[in-house]
């Protein structure tokens, strides 16, 4: 991991139903940095603002106040077209419910980011087939998402996220709909990618999944409560620390 900051949030604030009586502040003045090659896990209880946070720092949502910088460029200064281009060139998204287009085959789903990047037909076919082969889904390319299992769909979602060789992968509960075997496999894929230099920002509530990361931040009620770095710890020791971190926070809730 280098010291180069690839993603930065400064005084980030997100208010839903802004200027209305039902205004709700989901994030309060958050400052946060992600370094090149980082593998950050974002944890927190339900309703703590994890998904709002990840959506806001990854251009899906817009902050009410504050600034988000990706590769030193402020997101709000980009036009809608620039953001679109930025997404397919630099970001890969993986979601809990896969977010595949049910109307398109697996091949078409994976090919879309390449198509957007103006890659030629032969190259698209070659790259999709190669990646699908590597992910073990080559025989599923002609099928529609509803014809495949959850694990297979998540692999396709990963292929789509990786096909353009993005610098940053944003994953929101990527193992949420997978069984333990598929979850472990997905995490080892993400870990391997991280080792090749891809930056990963992942939301999860599972300490075991978090233990694959190199750093964890704990969000509660829209604030970053705690941070924990893996450092030289083994995955097992790191996992223990994460469990302790979660337990401490849960016990504080009990005291209330």
């Amino acid at each position: 991991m280098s010291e180069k900051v690839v993603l930065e949030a400064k005084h980030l604030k997100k208010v839903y139903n802004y200027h209305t009586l039902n205004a709700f502040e989901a994030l309060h003045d958050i400052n946060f940095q992600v370094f090149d090659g980082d593998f950050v896990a974002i944890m927190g209880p339900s309703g703590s603002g994890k998904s709002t946070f990840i959506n806001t720092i990854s251009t899906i949502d817009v902050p009410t106040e504050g600034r988000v910088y990706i590769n030193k460029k402020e997101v709000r200064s980009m036009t809608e077209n620039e953001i679109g281009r930025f997404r397919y060139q630099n970001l890969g998204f993986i979601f809990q419910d896969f977010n595949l287009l049910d109307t398109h085959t697996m091949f078409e789903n994976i090919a879309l980011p390449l198509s957007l990047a103006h890659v030629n037909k032969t190259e698209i076919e070659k790259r999709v087939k190669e990646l699908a082969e590597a992910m073990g889904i080559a025989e599923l390319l002609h099928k529609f998402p509803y014809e495949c299992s959850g694990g297979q769909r998540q692999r396709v979602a990963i292929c789509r996220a990786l096909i353009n060789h993005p610098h940053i992968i944003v994953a929101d509960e990527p193992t949420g709909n997978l069984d333990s075997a598929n979850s472990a496999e997905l995490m080892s894929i993400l870990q391997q990618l991280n080792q090749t230099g891809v930056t990963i920002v992942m939301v999860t509530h599972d300490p075991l999944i978090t233990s694959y990361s190199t750093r964890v931040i704990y969000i509660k009620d829209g604030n970053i409560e705690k941070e924990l770095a893996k450092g030289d710890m083994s995955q097992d020791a790191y996992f223990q620390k994460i469990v302790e971190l979660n337990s401490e926070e849960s016990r504080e809730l009990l005291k209330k």
Partner: protein
Amino acid sequence: MILRDALRSIQKDFSKAFFYWLIFVLTTMFIYLFFNISMSDPTVDPINNTGNTITYVMIIVVILCSVDILFANDFYVKLKGKDLAVRLICGGRFIQIASFLMIQTMLLLVLAIPLGILLSYMAIPMVNSVLALSNHGFLVTAHADAAMNATIIILYVVFWIILLNMSFAYRNAVGMLMNPSGITGSSEPMTFSVGLIKIKIRQTIDVLLFLVPIILIYFNRNLSVICSLIGMVGLNFCLSNVIAPWLSRQTSQKMVEHPRMVAALGFVRRDLKVLRNNIFLFIACAVVLVSMLVNSLDNDIAMMTILLSYIVMTFLQALALMFKFGTEVSLRRRLFMTLNHIGFMKEDQEIIIRREVKYVYGFILVITLLYVINILLVYTAAGDLSWKMSLFLMAGAVIPLILCGFINLFLYRRAVFPKLKDESEERINAE
């Protein structure tokens, strides 16, 4: 309690309930008007006399009206899936679920029938003024028998709706209701083998079955009805065996470099699968009725009845098509959010929507006109039909489709973009 819930459910899905109700109103109106016209000529008895053209037209019209109502009912009931699932989870019994559905349908039907009858009575002077223009000396009057016949037909349709709703309530489990089925069916790839040759032969036969009848009409125009019927059988096969695989090839291979086309054609492929029956009904109804009309030019009453049937049925079929397309695209917002995450900009998404609507309606229009224009051309060239009348008949198919296309485009944009609009508003607020 169930009545109150049913009323709330109608209120919640008001726009869908409105379209469902509108189909009932138009169907009732048309069936009454149809019987009044046919019974205004004492020589015609469409119920007992099985040999005349009007009897055949009546059979076609009644079948199409019934199918429209059944389609509309099926969609309305499926939309209530989550409501029904919640009721089942809370311990709802079969009879309660069935009553919940039946009360909604019956309420809409009760509100629709009187209005349909009233509108059909109000339309009689208008039809007479059109008839007076053509100087046929024939006037349409209101008949008690017409009301009786139409009521029997509507009750017959209602009987089927009751059966349909009962079976829906009986066979559905919570899981199925919460997760409505996607498109099913095989999507196996074509490989270069004996299978591919068989497929190619089959596709060629289907295309020939669709196109050859058009040529035959030029040889013997009196065969236009039979040729149209054979052509529609060919169309039915072409929709599944030729168009769908062709679209898949375009999306996955030929157009794969063009992101907007990949997205739009994928959506069109899905639309053609979902709307298949409606598309077929629209085209078949327009083509068969036009061919029957040009074969009845020497019989004023038959011609007027078929003309009226043609205009109303194309309108009704286009409305049913729009209703089903509208329901399908109302679920697309999530897919467009996914496109947004992948990197499709709002401008791209607008273009994708416009292309999709244009391709779907364009396809229906082209296939319909392919038959209609050729039939009209043969009769116009022979001097049996005026150019004005030919253009009028073409407009009868084109105008409802174009109108429904624009309404669908509006509904589609409204279904897909509210969230994106909110986002840009938030962006403006933030700045």
